[in-house]
């Protein structure tokens, strides 16, 4: 039932990456269709970072906020 599958560092990295891509698209640093594509693409990591849930992680059954699992499997 817990939906978050990203650690805080992962979320902040996604937000930063998203903002950079959005800036490149919106500022005209990268112009043309590719710039527009980058600007729109940037919202994907931005939103997944803000929400803390990545659909790709969910499909692959992967998560970065797995510190509890690591502790248990290490026998700590």
């Amino acid at each position: 039932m817990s939906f978050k599958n990203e650690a805080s560092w992962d979320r902040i990295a996604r937000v930063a990456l998203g903002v950079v891509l959005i800036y490149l698209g919106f500022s005209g640093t990268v112009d043309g269709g590719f710039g527009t594509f980058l600007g729109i693409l940037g919202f994907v990591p931005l939103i997944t970072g803000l929400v803390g849930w990545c659909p790709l992680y969910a499909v692959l059954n992967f998560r970065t906020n797995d510190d509890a699992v690591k502790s248990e499997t290490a026998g700590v």
Partner: protein
Amino acid sequence: MSDLASYTHPTLVEVMTPRCVECRAMQPDLDTVAEGHRDMVDLVVLDATKEPERAAALRVRGTPTLIAVKDGVEIARFVGRRSRTELDELFAAVAAGDTDDVASTSRSDRLVWGVGGILLAGAGLLAGPSWILVLMGAGLAGYALLRSVAG
């Protein structure tokens, strides 16, 4: 909520599932903090996989969910993992019967939203400016600030 009516002592109900990673990550801190507040606040752990009807009756939509109960009535609920400091604040608030000052969102959420909002607004200012980005960023940062102040 009739299910909570029997909890006349200040109580924190934790709804969890064994497979929930965030629940398992929070559990050691929760147990430690609960032990420290044992005389003032009861901790009730509800496994939603063993008692799905009770979890449904409590309208639980995600785990971990912490439900603060005073005089048998729910006074607040908090969804998501909390740090030990946040749990300490939460138990103290439940013991005092006043959870108004406890933020309903976790500190990590507010941090990500705040940083994201500031970065987005900054990128908007640098990109033109693009006022739609500035507005979105300011709104996001403002919301994070509001959740920090208003709880």
